[in-house]
């Protein structure tokens, strides 16, 4: 049985953009396909673990530091809580976690530490890039987010995107080798099969590396 953790900064009932609904659908479909799915997400009040009918476990963490001077400091302190609960999932499941699927840049720092410290590989699933969200902006604030995105592509086993266009953007902006990027459109008929295959290939590679 595949064991996974999914990192996303939005997950229902918290909806910021369309990522929330997508991650919910992915987690549900994976769970129905007999994958052990642990979603780690942010919610400032509804913290703790819940089990969904599909079998998905959702673990919500709050930011331990409430006052912030910007999104960056907010994200960077939240990462330690993400690490804490992800490590709990890891130790509670007998140290058998096959991979982490990380959505966008927010929890890349946690994924990188978990990879290097505990040997859990991760996929960097790209919903959007800082270059597109803040075009032409090159302040130190934007550069910091871009440096985290770069770190994500560098440390990830694979990147996963929903369109050929995004794949080209990633290879253009971050020089990511094309073969590292999987294109799996969310509207394709084979969507969940393709996702399962991607997950399995990473779990297999990890096993073989041992």
């Amino acid at each position, binding site marked *: 049985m595949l064991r996974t953790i999914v990192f996303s900064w939005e997950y229902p009932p918290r909806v910021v953009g369309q990522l929330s609904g997508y991650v919910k659908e992915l987690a549900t479909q994976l769970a129905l396909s007999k994958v052990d799915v642990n979603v780690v997400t942010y919610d400032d009040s509804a913290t703790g673990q819940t089990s969904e009918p599909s079998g998905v476990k959702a673990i919500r963490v709050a930011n331990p530091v409430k006052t912030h001077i*910007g999104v960056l400091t907010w994200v960077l302190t939240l990462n330690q809580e993400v690490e804490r609960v992800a490590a709990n999932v890891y130790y509670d499941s007998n140290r058998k976690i096959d991979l982490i699927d990380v959505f966008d840049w927010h929890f890349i720092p946690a994924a*990188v530490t978990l990879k290097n410290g505990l040997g859990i590989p991760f996929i960097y699933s790209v919903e959007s890039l800082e270059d597109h969200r803040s075009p032409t902006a090159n302040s130190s*604030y934007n550069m*910091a987010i871009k440096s985290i995105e770069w770190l994500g592509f560098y440390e990830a086993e694979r990147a996963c995107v929903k369109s050929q266009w995004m794949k080209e953007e990633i290879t253009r902006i971050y020089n990511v080798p094309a073969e590292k990027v999987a294109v799996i459109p969310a509207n394709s008929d084979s969507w969940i099969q393709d996702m399962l295959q991607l997950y399995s290939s990473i779990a297999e590679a990890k096993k073989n590396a041992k």
Partner: protein
Amino acid sequence: MPNKLSVLMLSWEYPPRVIGGISPHIYFLSKHLAQQDVKVYVVTCDFPGAPAHEVVDGVEVYRVDSYKNPSPDFATWVYLMNMNMQKETAVLMKQIGNKVDVIHAHDWLVANAGIGLKHVFRKPLLVTMHSTEMGRRDGLHTTAEKMIHETEAWLTYEAWKVICCSDYMISHVRYVFGLPSDKLVMVPNGVNIHCYDSNEDMAKFRSRFALPEEKIVLFVGRLVYEKGIHVLINAVPKILSKVNAKFIIVGSGYMKEQLLNIVRSMGLEHKVLFEGFLDEATLLKLQMSADVSVVPSLFEPFGIVALEAMAARSPVVASDTGGLSEIVEHDVTGVKVYPNNPDSLAWGITKVLQDEAYAKSLRENAYRRVQEKYDWAKIAQDTKRIYEGVLGEYSKSFWA
């Protein structure tokens, strides 16, 4: 424990990177822990010219990429630096087969790295709170200050034990973060007395700063409000009306221009020298040559400068506040004066400068006190005992 006790020491500064007092603290604590058979891994920020890995006095020192892109502001940089520190420490932990028993973090500057590593590797976390944002700023006035304060609170919450360097800091930290008292332990700061062993002719060195008939009054510290340097400047004319002296101010800070203007308006530029930062050798000799060392702080968690002066056998006049109150015993190891009171400060300095027998007894008592109480070997021993205590409790937890 069958294996050698092993500690992962996290600090944003370690020599040659020296910004404040944490850097020498980590250096001496680590060195003396190593001498007591503790394996120490120091993880710290990189510094131009310093190697990424080296062994210093038996201590493994690792310097990590401190995030060198431009940052929006200092606090954001701290969190970005912590992201890198955590990543590289995770790699190191894997390399050494997780052979670390405790993680020891120093101040909020490494809070995120310490907390993250604690949970990822399930190791007990200890923290030394060298200072607090609330103390540094005399309250919390901006969003950034509140954020740093909450980060400190989070760090003390996550820590198994919180070490402070004075009884004053213990009560301050307990009050500021609402901590249970059994979580707090006092271990004083130390001072290295051997760096003041010099046979050089001090008369010649002294002539660089003062005339033979002038007494040297020394201030060492950042030129910021909390250090009370303005109190000393206001006391200068009062002292000069009784004793011929030269005032030497070492250090820099945002109050420098303002202080220079006051000195100029008093027409005392020839009596008050602003030396800025000095190299260590010069500073040590200056401390040894000073006829009195003044520590007029308004907020002082510990007061290492007073201790250094005592080790350098220079009589100390310090304000009766914070950690200074504990270091200086009035009329025995130094003179205590009212904080933020130029008249009281002038009185204390004049008394030491006018009574040589009194000054001599202060020097001798203070030096003995430093040897007895603030010796790094003893401090490392106390710290090791705290590690062992924490490990004993940890071994009964489900993390072990």
